[in-house]
């Protein structure tokens, strides 16, 4: 079981690395933020698997914290990055 779970973490990590490539490629900032979101979710899955493999029960708490804060990068992006610059001063959706 341990071997299988370790291989699964490795596989998800490889997916995360590929996701990083798409941060690199873009093309838009929105795509980069999406890649961060995917890496966040994949990271949570990898943490849970790794915690089971390595016998670190607190990994679940770490994953819980990450899941709680998973939206923050995207919110910061929507509030600051896009509204101010890409949209040329037109207030973003949430800034009516």
């Amino acid at each position, binding site marked *: 079981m341990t071997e299988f779970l370790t291989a699964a973490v490795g596989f998800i990590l490889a997916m995360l690395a590929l996701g990083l490539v798409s941060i690199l490629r873009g093309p838009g900032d929105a795509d980069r933020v999406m890649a961060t979101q995917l890496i966040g979710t994949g990271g949570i899955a990898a943490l849970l698997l790794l915690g089971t493999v*390595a016998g670190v029960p607190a990994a679940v708490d770490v994953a819980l914290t990450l899941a709680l804060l998973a939206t923050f990068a995207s919110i910061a992006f929507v509030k600051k990055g896009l509204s101010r610059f890409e949209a040329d001063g037109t207030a973003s959706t949430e800034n009516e």
Partner: protein
Amino acid sequence: MSIATAFEIMLAAVLLGLGIWTIVVRETFSATVGFVAYGLLVALIWVRLDAADVALTEAAIGGGLSGVLLLGAAARLRDAEPMAEAAPGKLLRATAAALSVLTTATLAGTVLLLPDPAPSLAPASVANAWATGLSNPVTNVLMAFRAMDTMLEKVVLVLAIVGVWSLAPDSAWGGRPGPRHRADPYGVLAFLARLLSPVGIVVGIYVFWTGANHPGGAFQGGAILASMWLLATMAGLADAPPVSSRPLRLILVAGSGLFLIVGLAGLLFGAAFLSYAPALAKPLILGIEVAMVLTIATTLGLLLSGAPERSAEPWAP
């Protein structure tokens, strides 16, 4: 080579690659996004190294607050980038590269030259856990064995907020920090803030409370609480308090203040500064931690909000 070793090599390779890319990439926004992802991978490595306390700190700070801070800074810098000076000269770049290589070589040399097994106080701190009644060795070190360091860290937090506030223009002094965020009260963001904040407050208190015996603690819990406050502010549901508010200032100094009072009481009635009577150790530590979690959450939230820039009048729609 076992699967576990292959996995560790892969984790290290991805992290190194991402680190190098974050430095090399030209666009500030991409570098920032890369750095946020970097923090996540570092948390994975801390779990792999069985350092769950550190992983939790990395997740609580890197996942929420520092991402918001850095993305905001990148957005501001992007505005300024076209006006910035041309690229630095060759000599400057060569000097910076040489210094970086020197630092890296020194760090690598120091790590490689460590005696094996490395000197450690871990057995001593585990053996003396009975003195406090808490079973998380990290909390014991932070709150009892090296309590002086933790107290001074809380003083540094107060100094940091003084530093940020001192950037306020004279006209805004005593006012509310940061911009007033407005959002559609029935929009996605407001919905998320209403749904997530109560859950987040429970998780924050849980992480703080479990810190006595399991990985967790006041700093991690405080960072989660600060993130929830920030979420409510960004969604336009709450406003930052004016910096002239007296209750706010009391909360900002509560952590270091209570720590200092308990420390002085130890000097007067006990053996030394910051010594706890064994019978009272656990309640004293928990009391200090409750004050600290409030101080940390408030300070981090205010640090993210920035310098005062508006009048203290409440915002009316």
